[in-house]
């Protein structure tokens, strides 16, 4: 059992603590520490929920040096409170979706993309021809009993809902009130079409596997993971007329001393380098490593993953939708889950 004390102002470089929920994080940190003597990155791996609770509870006496989770909404919030180091994005050539997910003040960096709103279906229950192609079709009675996750339990699901609202209302900027209304109506009609809500990706896939439902809209990496690890061989993935890009994002704590921020920047730069990106793809081969790179010219780790273009992924603005997450999740819980 070892104790960790983060003491500021130590003579040697104390390194920093990385709060991360990513499946490849321990492989990444190990690789980085092995090749970068001078300071140590200490990994605080946990699920996203507890990490964010820790950060929030730590308040103005933070212990985290950098945060690395899926979804940008939390980072938008942190940025608004001035808790992120601005201009911390390393200079790499992002692809289109990558650039779209870099904020104007460059306070956080997208490190990869998954997609939510992938339509996963059980090919032993429905054939390819029986699967819808558009979101509008999901409200039709022939596609009754669709499954999805509960946004208050499943982190990637709120961005999906925000994406649906954005797309259906063609929201670009300004007040999102109208888009919210349009989206709420849409989900209400799904609800009336016997929508089945489960907690997380794993549980929804389980419901499909036990034939309670035959298709669901969930996160791409979860579907590919189940296909690859053999637990759900008949699972297939289709992308409808749009889906929502969910970046994995890393940001640096502005309240840390300069030396710590510098160390964190070095780490982020390494993550975005070729070596780092490859390490990401090897670190969790049947889980989080099943992402689309945000860097031009890089390919996904596994042939099972189709081209990014085929996903019709759109980006949502975390600064707009982040603040609405609590309200919309509560609405969803009250109206759809417990309705």
């Amino acid at each position, binding site marked *: 059992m070892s*104790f960790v004390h983060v003491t500021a102002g130590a003579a040697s470089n104390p390194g920093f603590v990385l709060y991360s929920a990513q499946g490849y994080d321990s492989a990444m940190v190990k690789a980085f520490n092995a090749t970068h003597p001078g300071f140590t990155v200490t990994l605080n791996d*946990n699920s996203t929920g507890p990490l964010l*609770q820790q950060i*929030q*509870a730590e308040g103005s006496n933070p212990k985290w040096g950098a945060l690395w989770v899926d979804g940008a909404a939390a980072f938008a919030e942190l940025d608004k409170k001035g808790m992120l180091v601005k201009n911390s994005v390393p200079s790499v050539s992002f692809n289109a979706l990558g650039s779209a997910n870099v904020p104007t003040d460059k306070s956080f960096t997208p490190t990869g993309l998954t997609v939510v709103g992938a339509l996963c279906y059980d090919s032993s229950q429905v054939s390819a021809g029986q699967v819808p192609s558009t979101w509008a079709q999901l409200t039709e009675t022939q596609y009754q009993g669709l499954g999805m996750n509960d946004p208050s339990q499943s982190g990637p699901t709120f961005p999906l809902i925000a994406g649906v609202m954005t797309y259906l209302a063609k929201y670009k900027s300004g007040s999102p009130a109208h888009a919210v209304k349009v989206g709420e109506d849409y989900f209400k009609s799904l609800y009336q079409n016997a929508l089945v809500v489960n907690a*997380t990706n794993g549980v929804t896939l389980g419901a499909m596997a*036990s034939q309670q439902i035959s298709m669901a809209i969930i996160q791409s990496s979860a579907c590919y993971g189940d296909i690859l690890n053999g637990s759900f061989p008949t699972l297939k993935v289709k992308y409808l007329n749009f889906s929502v890009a969910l970046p994995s994002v890393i940001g640096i704590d502005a309240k840390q001393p300069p030396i710590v921020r510098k160390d964190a920047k070095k780490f982020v730069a390494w993550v975005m380098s070729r070596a780092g990106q490859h390490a990401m793809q090897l670190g969790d081969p049947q889980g989080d490593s099943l992402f689309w790179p945000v860097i031009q010219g890089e390919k996904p780790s596994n042939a099972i993953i189709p081209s990014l273009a085929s996903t019709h992924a759109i980006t949502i603005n975390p600064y707009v939708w982040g603040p609405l997450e609590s309200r919309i999740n509560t609405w969803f819980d009250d109206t759809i889950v417990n309705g």
Partner: protein
Amino acid sequence: MIVETAPLAPPRDGRRRPHASGLAIGAVLTLLIVAPVVSFLLLAVSPRMFQQGPQWFTLRFISGAFSGNTDRGIINSLWVSTLVAVLAVSLATTLAWLIHRTNILGRRVWAVGMWVLLLVPSWMMTLGWTDLLQPFGAANAVGLNTRWLYGEFFGPMGIVIVLTTVALPFAYFIISAGLQGLGPEYEDAARIHGATRWLTLRTVLPMIAPALLSALAISFAETMSDFGVAFTLGYHSHFPLATYTLFAAIDNYPANFSIAAVIATVLILSTVPPIALQSRVMRSRTYAQLSGRTQAPRRREFRPRIRILATAAVAAVFFVALGVPVLGAVVGSFVRNLGTYSPTGVHFTWLYYSQIFHPSISGKSIGAPLLLSNQLGLVVATGTGVLAVVLARRLVATRGGWSQRVTDVFLLGSVAVPGVVLGVGYIFFYNLSFITRDVINIYKTLPLLMLALVASALPGQTRFMAGPVSQIQPSLNEAARVHGAGRFAAWRAASLPLMSRILLWGWLLTFTKTISELAIAQILYPPSQEPASVTIQAYLANFNPGTGTAMTVLTLAEMLGVIVIALGLYRAVTPRGWQRVGWSGVQT
């Protein structure tokens, strides 16, 4: 244990202890429990206190908590906890009477079974039930169709049933201790004056009213604070419970700690009425002493047919409460892709067990986490045991009066604090700048996690020990002192032997609770030192439920193994005289 008897000696002076030890205990409790919990609760009205909002004082969160889902959660929790408490106490009283006062078969087995029931955490129970009853679950794998039960189970009925089995052992131990102190003379007096058997029972049962009330209060508090069932069954059945809504309030980012604080305050305050009721009924009666001279109660001798029936009934209760979920989890862990429809039928496999130490996907092995959890369990159980003895003696020594009642309320209220509140409260308090800078910097270290785990286990273990500790005659210790033994030597010679078994069982209880504790572990574990409960949860929720279930079964088996070894060691190491006396959990 709390039985009215004629005082054997005039009242002792509880205030003769030097004031310093009282202050020391107060300081320890403040640092362990009060400061972190109050830090969290203050956010209910003052979010700015810990930079969680702009207001120094506001009531909007209080009104916010009593609306929508959170309001439903509070109301559901209140009536479910009341119902569960009544059910658990009724069932526990019946079982206690059957096991201690009749000649049913296998009494030892049932007494031990009650212990196992106590030690298995609620989330493992619900895992077992879910594994068993879900479509293509364990029941299906052995050829039973339970689809009709599944829908019923994932609703208020299932919740009440599982929560009752969780509360049952708490109620049972308190009531059986009370029953054991009830001599046969009271029943004899009733029978001689013409009472039927039923009337005798009704006459005599109120004599253990203090034990019944205590059991009701603690069943209520434990149920209010239960998270395992609320999170799984409650969520699935769209039947929100307060602990779940509390969790939901902080699971978003930004977390709404203030609403959570209001809910937590309601949970804690909800334990005040049961204590007040207990106080009123008992008035000035407090924990009374029983000497070693209490006669052994007589057993009701059933005729053979009734005997078999009664034994079968008890067996059925244990089967449903314990056997079913454990079997569900164990069988489930051997079924390939449990819960999945497989066109080729059911396959049993060792696959998941082979993966727990060498996972094929990039999840973590359970090896290091389980070792860490055992180490934590060792330290936490020992620390809690020492503190609990000190607190229990104090609780028992101060007779009647407001200080005992305050301690009682405090301890019961602490039982009602959900683990996540304690965990986040620890961050608030121990990460305060002036604390980390000038006092002690232990946030994000194992010592802090251990402190929080001790804080979580202490109230329950103190109440657990208070009864048996109160039954030790003070004169035994005094006799040792007068005849030449110093303070510690006298305690070791006179009190320790009588307490040794309760100490052992209390230790085991906290040891197992620590290994299975999830909420605090999740929020406070230090970097790269993940306890087993967190690993298991990650598997169950995200990676691979099959491996997660296998890990759960392994952990349960390991906990039971430790218990068996500990009991064996106790038997081997302690003098014969110790094993004859004092409280025995499995005495029948």
